[in-house]
């Protein structure tokens, strides 16, 4: 495992018209396994996630991604390229493929591009065999009502979104409110999964959350964001006691 720096934000600014919604001078992500990003509504958390994952473009600044000690400028990289170099995100607003069953979705995530060619009509058995073990593990770990059917609730779709991300075996995952809408037992499982992946496989995660109990319990380091800026970084203990955090967020 490398020094820990995975994402470096340099003078990242996002403006809409004259309004600055995000302004981060210098911040590094990935120094710990699981990091949290918290802040009041409108602080710019989702904007920041969107900027890193290039769903929206930067007004100014640069974002770099570190892969095998190589620094890659990802300020303008497409979603696809980001996923291929190992940066993925799960979605806050539920996203799914209406035509695909849960099993289909999982097979899709795992399919190597060699298999996805128009002349490969009989690739399915082989695809399934290769993916069987891994899919079986996930289906075992989480509970879906009908794995061979479609995700039938918002919770299942959310979970599917998270699992699809994980299956890409990314280096870094941005999770925007991953447990919102999940029933308690699935939330616990999701947390367990995050811990397992970061400890055993060297994956690193950034979680945006409003559920502070979850944040304190899971994150090793927390970034507090307000009015577009990252005001404070620290361990859960440090953040919990911090005056500014209390004034702008917890105290509310």
């Amino acid at each position, binding site marked *: 495992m490398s020094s820990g720096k995975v994402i470096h934000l340099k003078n990242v600014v996002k403006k809409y018209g004259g309004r600055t919604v995000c302004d981060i001078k210098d911040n590094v992500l990935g120094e710990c396994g699981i990091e949290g990003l918290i802040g009041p509504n409108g602080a710019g958390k989702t904007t920041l996630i969107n900027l890193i994952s290039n769903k929206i473009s930067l007004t100014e600044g640069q974002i770099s991604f570190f892969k095998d000690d190589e620094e890659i400028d990802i300020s303008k990289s497409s979603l696809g390229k980001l996923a291929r170099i190992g940066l993925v995100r799960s979605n806050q607003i539920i*996203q799914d*493929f209406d035509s695909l*069953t849960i099993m289909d979705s999982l097979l899709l995530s795992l399919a190597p591009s060699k298999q996805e060619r*128009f002349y490969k009509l009989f*690739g399915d058995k082989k695809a399934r065999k290769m993916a069987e073990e891994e899919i079986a593990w996930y289906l075992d770990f989480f509970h879906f009502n009908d794995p061979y059917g479609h995700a*039938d609730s918002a919770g299942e779709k959310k979970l599917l979104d998270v699992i699809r991300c994980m299956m890409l075996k990314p280096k870094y995952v941005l999770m925007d409110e991953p447990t919102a809408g999940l029933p308690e037992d699935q939330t616990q499982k999701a947390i367990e999964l995050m811990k397992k992946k970061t400890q055993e496989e060297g994956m690193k995660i950034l979680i945006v959350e409003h559920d502070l109990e979850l944040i304190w319990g899971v994150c090793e380091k927390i970034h507090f964001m307000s009015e577009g800026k990252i005001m404070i970084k620290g361990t859960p203990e440090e953040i919990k006691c911090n005056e500014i955090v209390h004034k702008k967020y917890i105290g509310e």
Partner: protein
Amino acid sequence: MSSYWIQAISFVAIFIALAGSLYLQSSIGGITNFGIVGFFGVAMYLYTIFVVTLAMPPLLALLAVVGIVFVVALVLGRVILNLGPQSILVATLAFATIIRHLATVLEGVTGAAKGIGTVKMPWDFEKTSDEKILFMVVLIVLAAIVLLYAAKIKKTPYGRLMLSIKDNEVLSESLGKATLNHKVIYFAFTCAIIGLFGALTAPIYTYIFPHFILADVTFVVWIALILGGRMSVWGAVVGIVATKFLFDFGIESALSAFQVRMGPAFGAMWPNIKLAVFGAMLIAIFMFRPNGIVSRKREGGQQ
């Protein structure tokens, strides 16, 4: 078998293949192609020119034509497939119109309204009817292959990929898929299938005219697929049988079988009645059964 029915079945096979290709493009790939007759027509004309004017051997001409259509669709796709669905629709329609105008205006090459031919069957037997029967069989086999591919594709990695791009391109891209590239290649090879059948239509017509490639061809295929049902490739079969087969061949032969003598006035009106009914059928499907005749509930009970 009478030559009337040989021709009828040949056309039905061709149109089923076209509807199947449209199913592949629209229901699996999410691409709204209003220019089917453009690819069909380019292939039909090129094959005819290669075989008649350039005296190429039929198989070579066929392969060349399919290759050319693939490349043309690749280029067109690269240009238009990252636009919105209404744009793609209008651009493909514009493409088909350009092809028809070219066929009309490049008189030296295409013969324009005077037509170009004679395109013979690609084999030579003693009896012409035998030649045509073999051709019909080949068409049926090829159409069946297209249908089979379309039926199986949903459960292959490639099918899942294209469906994901159709449903939510951004989400698919976020899983690392090169969505635009895939769309372009998919469009190119499905248009090549359309081209294949366009070329194979030439020997049936024997003499080719620009009015064979009016936009009506595109719309008849669309109407058939929507009528039959876009959710499964069997909708393509049902749709073509319920429109082209029924109206172009079925009703006509039923009328003559019952010795109902239709005067020339009726004969002139019949295409109008037929197409007015097609229009009405399309409207009715949208109003009352949007998923078409062959529609079924999704697995898991969701609609």
